């Protein structure tokens, strides 16, 4: 039995082509799957347990998919709901779903899969570091504001088994929501995971990547990917090249319960639009492991921005910044008596090397430069104080004592902008589970 999965877009919030979605629904998909998140936008979303996309915008796109689900008569699954997949973002999307169903006068069975972990418990759990993982101890783990485990296909299958029509899952691997049903239907396991990886970004595996909507058909020997937007084409090149995308290894992909190996895969054009893939291999592992992600507060930040337009200052910006850093540090020590190890100041010269820092190879003559001051402290009030003490230097600091007092451009008043907590990722580890559902919770409601 073949399985047809409709993927409307690379993520809820990125938009999709409505006509293409309608066309895909008419092809009678067995399931609609969409990803809701990623770590790519940074640790703040996981740290705070919030979505990066506007609720209003999410509601419009999610309503379109709930309507498509009803028209297709198949389940709708979202993984990593609300960018980070914490319990709070699952509930956020659940509340939006209730509003939409009420607006539409529809009822549905909804399953929520919760992926969040208790930091105190994880601190006591044996973890295995992945390559390039940071060192962590029990204290670091306990300090995490949120920790999530990445669910695989098994947890989504458990939710599908309830007969749920809408599944809102917390953190999952990008592929799990797509691979779950083909695996459950007994389709080729290598194809299920490979097709899921190719499809997880929607039409990014085809030409016209912004159109979003694709269909992936799975069977017992391989899978076929078909983009649905007018004029969009998948070619063996666009499909196979997608394995490069955001993957450190383009041939091997680790998932809960094993890994995908595509070294022997072959990609064949079926026609001008669709591509058939066979030869992918799934290699089961001895132990079932899930990856963990965690974020902790690294400090609180205040930032300021000044602009240098005077050619003399543009030419000597680094000297100017170094001098300000030294004077500011000395004033902070004198007036606040803070231990230098507890706070941090930095000036990044925008237009010179703000992107690459010391790795920058090029120099150029700029017309103007931005100076971004970043102050980090254990609390917001101290960060703001550090910023206020930086302010007079950015406004008036002269390169030499002899010259008339200069003044530089500030784009804002007040110049200090409180950024709130700055978070950092602290986990790149896996933990073993005796049963895939051991670290996950399923809640089913009829609404």
């Amino acid at each position, binding site marked *: 039995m073949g399985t047809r999965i409709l993927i409307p877009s690379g993520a809820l919030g990125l938009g999709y082509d409505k006509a293409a979605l309608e066309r895909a629904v008419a092809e009678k998909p067995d399931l609609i799957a969409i990803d809701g998140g990623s*770590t*790519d*936008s*940074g*640790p*703040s979303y996981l740290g705070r347990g919030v979505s990066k996309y506007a609720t209003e915008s999410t509601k419009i796109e999610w309503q379109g998919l709930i309507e498509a689900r009803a028209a297709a008569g198949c389940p709708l699954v979202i993984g990593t709901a609300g960018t980070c997949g914490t319990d709070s973002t699952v509930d956020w999307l659940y509340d939006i779903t209730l509003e939409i169903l009420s607006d539409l006068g529809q009822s549905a069975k909804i399953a929520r899969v919760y992926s969040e972990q208790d930091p105190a418990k994880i601190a006591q759990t044996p973890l295995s570091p*992945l*390559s*390039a*993982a*940071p060192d962590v101890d029990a204290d670091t783990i306990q300090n995490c504001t949120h920790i999530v485990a990445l669910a695989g296909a098994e947890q989504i299958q458990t939710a599908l088994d309830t007969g749920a029509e809408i599944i809102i899952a917390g953190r999952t691997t990008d592929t799990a929501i797509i691979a779950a049903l083909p695996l459950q239907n007994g389709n080729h396991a290598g194809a299920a995971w490979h097709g899921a990886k190719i499809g997880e970004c929607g039409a990014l595996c085809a030409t016209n990547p912004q159109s979003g909507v694709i269909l992936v058909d799975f069977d017992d020997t391989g899978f076929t990917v078909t983009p649905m937007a007018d004029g969009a084409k998948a070619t063996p*090149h666009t499909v*196979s*090249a997608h394995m*490069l*995308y*955001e*993957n*450190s*290894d*383009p*041939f091997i992909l680790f998932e809960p319960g094993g890994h995908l190996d595509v070294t022997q895969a072959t990609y064949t054009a079926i026609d001008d639009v669709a591509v058939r893939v066979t030869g992918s291999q799934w290699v089961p592992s001895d132990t079932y492991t899930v990856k963990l*992600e965690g974020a902790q507060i*690294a*400090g609180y930040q205040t930032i300021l921005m000044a602009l240098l337009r005077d050619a003399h200052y543009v030419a000597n910006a680094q000297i100017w910044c170094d001098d300000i850093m030294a004077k500011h540090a000395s004033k902070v020590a004198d007036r606040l008596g803070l231990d230098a190890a507890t706070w*941090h100041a930095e000036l*990044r010269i925008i237009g010179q090397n*703000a*992107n*690459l*820092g*010391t*790795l920058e*190879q*090029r120099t150029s003559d700029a017309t103007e430069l931005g100076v971004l001051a970043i102050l*980090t402290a254990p609390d917001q009030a101290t960060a703001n104080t550090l910023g206020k003490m930086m302010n007079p230097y950015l406004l008036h600091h002269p390169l030499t004592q002899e010259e008339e007092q200069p003044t530089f451009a500030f784009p804002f008043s007040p110049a200090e902008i409180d950024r709130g907590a*700055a*978070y*950092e*990722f602290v986990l*790149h580890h896996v933990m073993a589970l005796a049963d895939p559902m051991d670290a996950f919770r399923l809640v089913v409601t009829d609404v």
Partner: protein
Amino acid sequence: MSSVAQIVQKVRSKNAGPFWLTIDIFCGSPAAYAQIVQGLSTDRVATLFRTTPDEIKRFDIKDLNVVKFSLPRPTIQGSRTDRDMHGAGWAPLIAELEIN
């Protein structure tokens, strides 16, 4: 001598999760691919990123005319020292390299 950018179609850098960076060089033709494979050593990439060659995974993918490098991120994504949340800004370092 030409820069990598003059030889190839596109150089892309992206996060591969918060702890890894991956750089894809889309050469666009077998000739450009051969030039990059021969002219761009893993040692030079390591020097550019101030790391060692053994930290870098290299994939020469002839079927796609792509050379791919993956390495632990120079700064962990979003950490205080990080300057580039999505990792996109490292590509020009490779694109602007002069090779034979």
